[in-house]
């Protein structure tokens, strides 16, 4: 094969790839519930006055946060199968703050190998205890004003994280192997853009209600809607 045909082949490849970009599809939708979810419980922070006085309205449990129109917040929606060609984790770190003895955000999603930056904005010491099973379990204290703790995870896992000093502090590290993931906001809506055409399995994970999956095929430039409905339990 001579050099000219080789260069032509390369040119063709490049054009093909660039052409694909604008034509990438999007999956979007809304996560809602049916039935009656547990009433959010008021958290009694009296043992930690410095935190208690940071809440004008008392903080409440976040294991099932609902919004208008039965929307569910803090649901992790991600491509669990079908996604291709993404291994490198983004260089940007995901931040996870401890403020008013609450985790901000309650659920943080990040990619395998991506850096997690944990900060303490409180006047009290916290200990961040990642109760991992697939990954290495760790438990580190963070005194007020201490430097951020940075960690990485090398396996896909939904890791419960807690602070033993303030037992009500409970959150999750959603460590995903895909780069296509999103955590629903207060409206329960989500959007997974830049998906090359193809067949995908979309999964939605909620800490109390479990995981749901749906199959979907999208063509180039197409935007499809996938909604998830969880069965809420009063207790």
């Amino acid at each position: 094969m001579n050099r000219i045909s080789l260069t032509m082949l390369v040119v063709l490849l490049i054009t093909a790839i660039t052409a694909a970009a604008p034509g990438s599809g999007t999956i979007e939708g809304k996560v809602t519930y049916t039935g009656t979810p547990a009433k959010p419980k008021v958290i009694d922070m009296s043992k930690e006055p410095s935190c208690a006085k940071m809440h004008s309205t008392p903080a409440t449990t976040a294991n099932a946060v609902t919004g208008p129109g039965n929307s569910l917040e803090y649901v992790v929606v991600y491509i669990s199968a079908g996604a291709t060609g993404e291994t490198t984790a983004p260089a940007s770190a995901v931040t996870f703050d401890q403020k008013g003895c609450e985790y901000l955000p309650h659920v943080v999603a990040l990619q395998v190998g991506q850096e997690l930056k944990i900060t303490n904005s409180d006047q009290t010491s916290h200990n961040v205890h990642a109760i991992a099973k697939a990954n290495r379990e760790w438990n580190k204290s963070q005194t007020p004003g201490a430097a951020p703790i940075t960690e990485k995870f090398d396996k896909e896992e939904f890791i419960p994280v807690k602070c033993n000093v303030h037992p009500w502090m409970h959150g999750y590290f959603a460590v995903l192997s895909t780069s296509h993931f999103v955590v629903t906001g207060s409206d329960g809506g989500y959007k997974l853009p830049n998906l090359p055409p193809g067949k995908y399995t979309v999964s939605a994970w909620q800490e109390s209600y479990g995981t749901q999956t749906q199959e979907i095929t999208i063509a180039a430039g197409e935007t499809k809607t996938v909604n998830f409905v969880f069965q809420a339990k009063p207790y």
Partner: protein
Amino acid sequence: MDQASTQKVVPHHEPPHSFIRKYIFSLDHKVIGKQYLGLGLVAAFVGMALSWAMRIHLGWPDASIPLLSKLSSNGAPGGVITPEYYLSLMTMHGTIMAFFVLTAAPLSGFGNYFLPIQVGAEDMAFPRMNMSSFWITFLGFILAAATFVIPDGPPISGWTAYPPLSAVGPDAGPGQGWGQNLWGLSIACFTIASLLGALNFLATTLDMRTKGMTLSRLPLSVWGWFITAALGLLAFAVLLPCALLLMLDRLAGTSFYIPGGLVLSDKLQPHTGGSPLLFQHLFWFFGHPEVYLIILPAFGIIGHVLPTFIRKPLIGGWRVLTACMVLIAFLSLVVWGHHMFVSGMSPYSAMLFSVPTMFITIPSIIAMLIWIFSLYGADIRFSTPSLFSLGFLSLFVSGGIGGFFLAQPSIDSYLHATYFVVGHFHFTMGMSAVFAIFAGFYYWFPKMTGRLMNETLGKVHFWFSFIGMYGIFMPMHFLGFAGHVRRYSALVDDYLIPLIPTQRFISIVALIVGAAQLVFFFNFIWSYYKGKKAADNPWEATTLEWDTASPPPFDNFGGRHLTVYHGPMEYNVEGSKGDYVMQTSPEPIGEKT
């Protein structure tokens, strides 16, 4: 018979020639004694450094100690001590001080060096066992020190290591993984070594005494070590299985101490039916005698050193003080429950344990009266050893008083686990023992090295230490009355915040006292090489160690066979020309014991 074959059965080895045999794996009780003292000094320095870190943190919670950040990036990120690292420091401070300093130095250190000489033997009964005791202890210390370099860091469950905290592994918190395992191994080593050592001490005292060294002529130091060894044999024999069961719970999944239905770190623990109180009973059955394993050699040393410097025998001779020590040792075996008044043990047994605990004060107070009233009409010579002995008397009175409070369940229910307890046991088993160690160290240094320690530096060391000890530990009693809970890495409770200045004051005094100990280290090193040459009997004492060269030759008495004619406290005897009579002097006098 030719000498070669003779050696087969001569238990008392020949002078070694290789360096290793001389200084490292030596069978010579004097070298082993020095090794123990050296280990004790190193351990004491480590333990003291740990307490400095704790004191700095308590006084100035957000102060940064750069050195610590190098030692543990998780435990002290940026040099600021995290709550769990404070507990690690506390745990290792207690473990190292209680075992590797206060038990090792006065008993195994001075005991190894001087017990055989004082009974006129040429070595311990079992030199090889003696050597292994030291090296097993050394291994134990290495294991304890190793906890600082492993990733988890040292355990955080205190030197008492109560299960389930100490038994369920990493779920209980940082340091409860390999840190706690190494800790357990370290304690096991120390225990085995102490048992072997106790056998050696007892057998040597009973069977290796020289001609004329009847029990009534033993120096009080020997009595102290002998009684301690007997007590240790019983106490450590219980600690060993206690620790074994704990390790099995940790590593083999058994449920001796861990009950069912425990949830740690959101994990339901796979155990059933164990009893945490069982551990507490086993532990304190050892743990309370341990306090006396530490203080009885101190009693012995003071009983031995004081008469030399007041130039009088103690009132009641050897009998009364020895009887007190025996009584204390015996009672210490039946009072362990007073550590558990609020532990959920039956309130009836609390009352049962309270009474013998109170009765321990009687022999203790008799001993104090004997010492104090022996000063009456004396001619006290104020050299450093005597100052430390007198300091011991004052400190032990102050410490013993706290016992009256803690021995009563009703009062203990208020003072338990407060700084009152911390102040109390630091006065009694801590500082009293330390002062006795210093008394012994300044007293015997000339014999061990052939040189005298510098008196001026010694007195500086004494005054800073003596006043300092009160400055540190008396305020802790006061904090106890204010309900200041111990083992807190930071003061966040509303009623504790006003007490921070007091903590800061204690910290400052502690740092000054710590600096004063450096004076001692310097004096020790300097005198070792440059100190004034010592005569064989610089203090004009009577016992056998002063009847040989300084330092003593390999077989202690250069082949002489001593015969003992008198008791150890023949000072200012009527009708004798000098103001003291050596135990070996045939000069006939009315034997007064």
